[in-house]
């Protein structure tokens, strides 16, 4: 392009500057997020000013209150019809307040709450020097096995920072699902990723693995977010804006005020496709879809199990929420470009996750691969690109998150001298020693396997139904096959627990505090309710399945 044109542009841009007004923020509609962030900040202050011995209680109190309040706020907004009729875009186009965002925010907040219970559990580990300890490092900074660490343990330090970190992560996720422009999306992504990186590093036992998990997660996460950011840059370049609505218009070609001078970049499809692809890739990384899944097993294994549970549940929810919004709001115009690609991704994810899981020997890695396979199933619903698709995905996520947290909570209970006994061989004969725990875990496994009368089946059916209706019958068949494969290893665990003789020096099942019990109980309850009488929640999901544009 020619320099004078650019110059004139520059001047016009210049004299537009003073017209910037004060931003208008609908605090009420953002209240869930704001509450959580506020609580998180309070938590930081607590860390700073409350004496050590009462920090734990203060933190738990603050977090619980905050999460409950946030959930109440979500319900309130939904009751006011912000999910359906009054759905609109708030905060100067940065945040969308609509059905999906509210539904997912509700799910995330609940997941956060249940996760918090497992975080706050301090009955499982044997008391060190007379003070109860949770599953987080006494002092993260202390070198594993060093005198400093011993001292910290002796002094009864606990890392109560985990609570504010959890809250920050939750806040980020809340924004992530409802972000309505790419910048917000990116910031939210970082806001919930960074705390998770830290949480991964904080395991009390097996700290080396924990730190390794954190490093891997961090480096790969940063790597992925760089791609995301580049994608955003390209989309910005394509549309000249980062707001979803604007980009969508440009994609549809319905945008009016195209500056002829910008023909070079504006509406250049290469930019669109590249940017879209990279952005989607960033989200698929968070989802844990093949081939961006490889961090999942290691991180799930290394991270403290409560964190794993929370991460596995909430991250998936948030990431799928963002993915849905991106594909349904921003890129519906280029559906025919991304659908086939997504098909491929969904297929390899379903099969890959299921197949590799067959030979796993560590229960946490096993669950990690199963979560990958599930990501594949959910993608099948995403691909449906229909109202049904959205609602089915929402339903699936809600059901899945509770099963996951519950399952990992059970994992925290099975312990031996070295902490949690995650190697499968140690689970042999668990059904003999403590039938109840084994039965509960079996229920979760059956839900994962999608056996009827569990939430897993209802969700799977909903998703596949949407996919089939959306003309993706082959995908359904492959999904069915891979869930058959997946069934194999879930069954293997059940066989192990019930039909093999208990090992003489096998692990013991710790009796948890009401917190973990609550987490597990909630998991079971939701699993069965969504399995037996899912109609109400399906209605909810259906109502909430419209994105505001």
């Amino acid at each position, binding site marked *: 392009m020619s320099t004078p044109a650019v110059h004139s542009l520059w001047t016009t841009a210049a004299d537009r500057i003073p017209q910037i007004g004060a931003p208008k923020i609908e605090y009420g509609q953002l209240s869930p997020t704001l509450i959580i962030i506020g609580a998180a900040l309070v938590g930081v202050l607590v860390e700073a000013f409350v004496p050590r011995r009462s920090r734990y209680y203060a933190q738990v109190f603050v977090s619980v209150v905050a999460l409950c309040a946030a959930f109440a706020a979500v319900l309130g907004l939904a009751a006011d019809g912000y999910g359906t009729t009054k759905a609109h875009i708030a905060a100067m186009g940065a945040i969308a307040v609509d059905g999906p965002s509210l539904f997912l925010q509700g799910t995330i907040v609940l997941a956060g709450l249940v996760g918090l219970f497992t975080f706050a559990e301090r009955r499982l580990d044997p008391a060190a020097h007379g003070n109860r300890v949770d599953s987080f490092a006494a002092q993260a900074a202390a070198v594993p096995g060093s005198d400093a660490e011993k001292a910290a343990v002796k002094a009864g330090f606990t890392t109560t920072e985990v609570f504010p970190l959890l809250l920050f992560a939750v806040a980020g996720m809340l924004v992530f699902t409802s972000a309505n422009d790419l910048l917000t999306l990116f910031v939210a992504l970082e806001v919930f990723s960074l705390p998770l990186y830290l949480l991964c590093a904080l395991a009390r036992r097996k700290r080396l693995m924990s730190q390794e998990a954190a*490093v*891997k997660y961090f*480096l*790969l996460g940063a*790597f*992925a977010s760089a*791609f995301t950011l580049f994608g955003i840059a390209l989309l910005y370049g394509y549309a000249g804006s980062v707001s979803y609505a604007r980009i969508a218009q440009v994609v549809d070609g319905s945008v009016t005020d195209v500056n002829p001078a910008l023909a070079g970049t504006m509406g250049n*499809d*290469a930019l669109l*496709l*590249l940017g*879209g*692809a*990279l952005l*989607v*890739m960033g989200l698929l*990384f968070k989802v844990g879809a*093949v*081939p*961006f899944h*490889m*961090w999942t*097993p*290691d991180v799930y294994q290394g991270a403290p199990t409560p964190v794993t549970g929370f991460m596995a549940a909430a991250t998936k929810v948030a990431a799928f929420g963002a993915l849905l919004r991106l594909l349904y709001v921003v890129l519906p115009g280029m559906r*025919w*470009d*991304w659908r*086939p*690609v997504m098909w*491929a*991704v969904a297929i390899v994810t379903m099969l*890959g996750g299921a*197949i*590799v*899981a*067959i*030979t*796993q020997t560590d229960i946490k890695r096993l669950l990690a691969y199963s979560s990958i396979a599930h990501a594949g199933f959910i993608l099948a619903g995403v691909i449906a690109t229909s109202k049904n698709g959205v609602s089915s995905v929402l339903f699936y996520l809600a059901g899945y998150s509770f099963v996951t947290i519950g399952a990992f909570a059970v994992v925290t209970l099975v312990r031996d001298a070295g902490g949690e006994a995650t190697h499968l061989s140690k689970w042999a004969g668990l059904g003999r020693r403590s039938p109840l725990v084994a039965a509960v875990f079996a229920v979760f496994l059956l839900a994962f396997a999608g056996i009827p009368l569990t939430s897993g089946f209802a969700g799977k059916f909903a998703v596949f139904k949407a996919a089939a209706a959306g003309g993706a019958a082959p995908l359904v068949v492959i999904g069915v096959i891979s869930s058959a*494969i997946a069934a*194999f290893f879930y069954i293997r665990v059940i066989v192990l627990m019930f039909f093999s003789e208990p090992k003489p020096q096998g692990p013991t099942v710790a009796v948890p505090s009401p917190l973990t019990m609550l987490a597990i109980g909630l998991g079971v309850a939701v699993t069965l309710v969504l399995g037996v009488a899912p109609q109400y929640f399906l209605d909810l999901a259906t109502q909430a399945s419209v994105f505001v544009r």
Partner: protein
Amino acid sequence: MEKLIALLIAAPLLGAAVLLLGGRRLDRVGHWIGTLLSTASFVFGLVLFTDLLGRNAEHRTLIQHLWTWIPVEGFQADVTFRLDQLSMTFVLLITGVGSLIHLYSVGYMEHDERRRRFFGYLNLFLAAMLLLVLADNYLLLYVGWEGVGLASYLLIGFWQHKPSAATAAKKAFLVNRVGDMGLSIAIMLMFTTFGSFAFGPVFGHVDGASQGKLTAIGLMLLLAACGKSAQVPLQSWLGDAMEGPTPVSALIHAATMVTAGVYLIVRSAAVFDAAPDAQLAVTVVGAVTLLFGAIVGCAKDDIKKALAGSTMSQIGYMVLAAGLGPIGYVFAIMHLVTHGFFKAGLFLGAGSVMHGMNDEVDMRRYGGLRKYMPVTFVTFGLGYLAIIGFPGLSGFFSKDKIIEAAFAKGGTEGWILGGAALVGAAITAFYMTRVMLMTFFGEERWKNQATRSPEAPSAEPAAEHRGETAEPHPHESPKVMTIPMIVLAVGSVFGGGFFSIGDRFLYWLEPVTGHSEGHSPVSAGEVTAATMVCLVIGVAVAWAQYGRKPVPAVAPRGSLLTRAARRDLLQDDFNHVVLVRGGEHLTRSLVYLDHTLVDGVVNGTAAGFGGLSGRLRRLQNGFARSYAVSMFGGAALLVAATLLMRAV
């Protein structure tokens, strides 16, 4: 009057139920209950018989409908009984001979602690046999058909602790099953052809049916008859069936059950008359069997097996006659009845002999018994004269008629069949004389024998209870056993004459079977003469061999034919090699295949996924940078694919 028909069956059935469910407390009286009830059935039979005689020929068919058995769309099977002259004849034969043999068994099985059960089985057999002959449709007949099979299975294998007995029983049942297959296929064919398998509709619509279908039905019925009546090629079981107690051999494997095949063919006369090809097949089977059985009969040293061979051959005569159509039906049945008398008598005699000889069955260890057991000798002798067709005795009348009828078939067939029948007559004379001589005449070979020879093992372990002694002391059997023998002897002497004088039997049966005089190329007189000649030859040869020179106590090697005949003309070897061995190999290989192939495919798939998984998980090598590589590669693919999509 119809009401009585059900009672015919009910009585022995009740007996079976009581005796089998009653338990040990009935051990003392069980056998009398059984005998009583079978006799009761015989009495009912007589009552009905007199009633039939009271009616004129065309009203001599009684129908009793009890209940609808299998009502299904377009498929109607009823429990209905039909009593006409034919079934009446059988009823009397079955219940009469049956009762006598019950009586005989009271003595014969005296020392067996499972006597109660034995009588239970006998009653069960009577019930089934009566059901067979009284049924008004083929499906119900089939029930009786398999019922007698079951009873025969239970009775042959009555001494189950003897493997040979158990095997023989199994064999009998299996071979019969092959025949039953024929019957069931025949029934299906009838259903597709006539839409029914009740006698009335089937025989009524024969003319409406196609030739092919009728022939098929006929052949299938013949297959069934072969199985039950031990006709070639399904005859192999009868010899082994002699493992059963002798009364069983007498009742089931001589007098009644084995003749069921003949009944079936005669009963289906309407079908066969319309299917000449099938009839030809029947005659052929009959002719072959009558020779086959006779030859086998000559070679056996086991008295019961020899008699079994003769049974086979005699039934061969009946089947041959039945195959001749209206010319022969009546005589088939007549021979059946007379044979029922004398063959039962012969078997009971044999039983009595064994009874006195510590259950020795090897005739080479008999000899000169006539002065030790006179009654047995006389009754047996009369039976012998009857079966070889000595003029004036039963066999003479019935067999002679059959031979005539065979010739009357006309054409070369007539000559062949007639010739076969004649030869058969000669051989019959030979082997029966042989039995007679070896048993009752000659030197007393049973004296001063240390041990039994291995190749003649005891047929009846009842011996164990009777206290085995090194040397037998032949003695006459008790009254309870001899009386039935005497009665049967009387029957075998006068039966034939009674029937034939004034063709009583013919007129009695004709309304059911129909009758026509064939025009024989040879006159009745000539036939009789020929028969007589054959008879004399047979007897003479036998005398020359076994009468004049002493019988060796151990069987000589004998000619090739003899050796083959001893083994049922190699039939058993054939069965063993082809069916048994072949079957074993087949099943074994199938078991192997099921494990390796069918199961292997599935396990293979599972293992395949396992291996794939093992390989894939190696990608997860723990190095963050390789993960990054996969991400990078994935991103590249994603981008490339997206661009490609647009390009395409």
